[in-house]
Each structure stands twice: as C-alpha cells, then as structure tokens.
C-alpha cells in the first residue's frame, strides 16, 4: 500500500505555494477552492516533492448542501497518496474545472460523474453521458433523484 501523506502538512505546503487556495484539511483529505484546482493539480503532478503521476480514482459525493468531487492521487514514484477534494454549491449548475489535461485517467471518470451526479467539468474535451443513454432525464446518483 501507499503511504498516506499527512494532510495537515500537505495543506500547509500548498498554502505556502498558493496562498488562500486551501479551504480546509482534515483526516479525510484536503478541500481546495475549485477555481484554484487546475494550478494545484499541475503543481501536485509536476513538483518533485509530490509527483502525483497517477489519478487512481475520481468520484463525487452529494451532501445535499453541496457536491464534493474527490480526487484520489497516487505517486508511483514516491509511493504516497492523497485525497484532494473540491466543492460546488450550486445544485442547478454545479461546475468544476476539468483535470483531463493533467491526468488522462480523468476522462471517463469525469464523464461518469457528469452522467450520474450532473456535475459539469469545464474544459472536458468530450463531456457526454457514459453509462446512461442520450435522452435520459436527471442524474440518478443525486440524493433528490427519485
């Protein structure tokens, strides 16, 4: 297994590099501001101290008050991992910047999240439904979907 990084320490390091980008950090991960996500993602991938070269998983959670998109990052070089999170509060049109150009693995994962949770990934090259068919109404993994 990979070594899970100390989130507090990573949050402090990220705040140094990008002041004001980290909203909170707890035991479950680091929540960052969505408008700063892309520069943070690029930094986490390219800097030699982190070098997160592998996006293991991308998913989303509906907390009713807000959606949370979760990025599980793994560094195959340094053998450590990190949970990065982004929130969006607008239920009608939740928008999160896409990280496809940082990690190609995000392509299908973001399409799945768009399909089932209805979160729009801005900058995704081919954002359309993945599991459900064109013409399906609604996003079934939302808490208010019935």
């Amino acid at each position, binding site marked *: 297994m990979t070594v899970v990084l100390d989130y507090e320490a990573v949050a402090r390091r990220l705040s140094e590099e990008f002041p004001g980008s980290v909203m909170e950090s707890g035991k479950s991960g680091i929540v960052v501001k969505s408008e700063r996500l892309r520069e943070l993602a690029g930094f986490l991938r390219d800097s030699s101290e982190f070098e997160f070269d592998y996006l293991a998983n991308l998913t989303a959670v509906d907390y009713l008050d807000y959606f949370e998109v979760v990025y599980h990052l793994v560094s195959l070089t340094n053998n450590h991992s990190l949970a990065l999170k982004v929130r969006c509060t607008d239920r009608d049109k939740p928008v999160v910047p896409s990280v496809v150009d940082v990690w190609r693995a995000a392509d299908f994962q973001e399409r799945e999240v768009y399909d089932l949770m209805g979160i729009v990934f801005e900058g995704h090259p081919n954002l359309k439904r993945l*599991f*459900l*068919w064109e013409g*399906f109404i*609604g996003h*079934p993994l939302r808490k208010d*979907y019935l």
Partner: protein
Amino acid sequence: MEIERRELSLPGSYIDIVEGREVESLKESCQQPIPDSDSWLETELRRNVLLTTVDYVIDWARSRSVFPLMFGLACCAFEMIATAASRFDIARFGMDIFRWSPRQADLMIVAGTITWKMAPAVKLVYEQMAEPKWVIAMGACAISGGTFRESYSVVPGLNRIVPVDVYVPGCPPRPEGLIHGIRLIHQKISRDTIKKV
C-alpha cells in the same frame, strides 16, 4: 559366398512354386464374398425397416444439437461457464460448442442483469439468430430485474424485449439448475412440429 548363394537358390525356386500354387488355389476358392453374420442383430434391425414420423426425427436431431450462444451479462455467466466446463459438462447433451456468432447458435442463455443501454444489443443478437431459436432467462435479474427491478437503468425482465422459453430462477442458479432448464428446452423441442399452423 558363391557356395552359399547356390545352396539358397535351389530350395528357393521350389518354395516359389509351392507359394504360387497356394495363391492360385486360394484365389480359386474365394470367388464369392463371405456373408456377414446378422445373428447378433435384434429382430427389428434385422428387418432393416424403421417407422417413425418426420417430426420425431427432426425434433430428435434438433434437441440433441442445441448450440448455445456465448452470452454473459453479469455474474450468472460464471455459473453458465461452470455448466459448460468439465465438471458439469453440457457436452453430454450435444451442446459442446458455445458459438460466438448468433448466426450459428440455436439457444440464447441470457445470464445476468440487462440494462436498458444493453437491451438493444440483446434484442439485435436475438434477431440475428436463425430460426428455430430458443431463449433461457437465467437468474433473478434476467427473469424480472431481480434486486434491481426498481432501478432507473435495469430492464425489469427479459420478456420485455424478447420472447422467453424457459425461466431458470436463482441468484445465481447452480449449474444443476441451468442443466434442468436446458433439459426442459430439450423437452420443449421434442414436442415441436414442423407443420405450419
């Protein structure tokens, strides 16, 4: 060396003459074939006449050469694979070969959950199969949607999209259950008629 050769050549020619006579006499006595013995045959076969119906022969042939379509949608497929493998061995019923092509298959075993996105493919594969064709709905999901019946993406029963001949319940059914379903298909085939109604 020369002495030995002379000694061999004299009795040799004599042996050749004897052998030639033997061949001639055997050929003389074997001008007709020996009749095959039929005493071991049973009475009906010795008469060499079988009376049956066209339906019976066709159904007999069809029910003993049902080729299933290689078709697995979910976990039930593993029980289907086990049924085909050596322990349960549906080769006993003349079903050795799972066909990859629907053109060559007679039986579609729908093993697993059918989602609405997969449903057009299932229907297409069924329509591509040549007549006569039969369908087994294997497992709770294929029969009725199973646990996922209320789901937004699951077909509530295979019979919504194609006609079903035999339902094999279970989650998943054991290979014995599937074999029982296959035997029922055989029974159903053996009651078919080629008569146009």
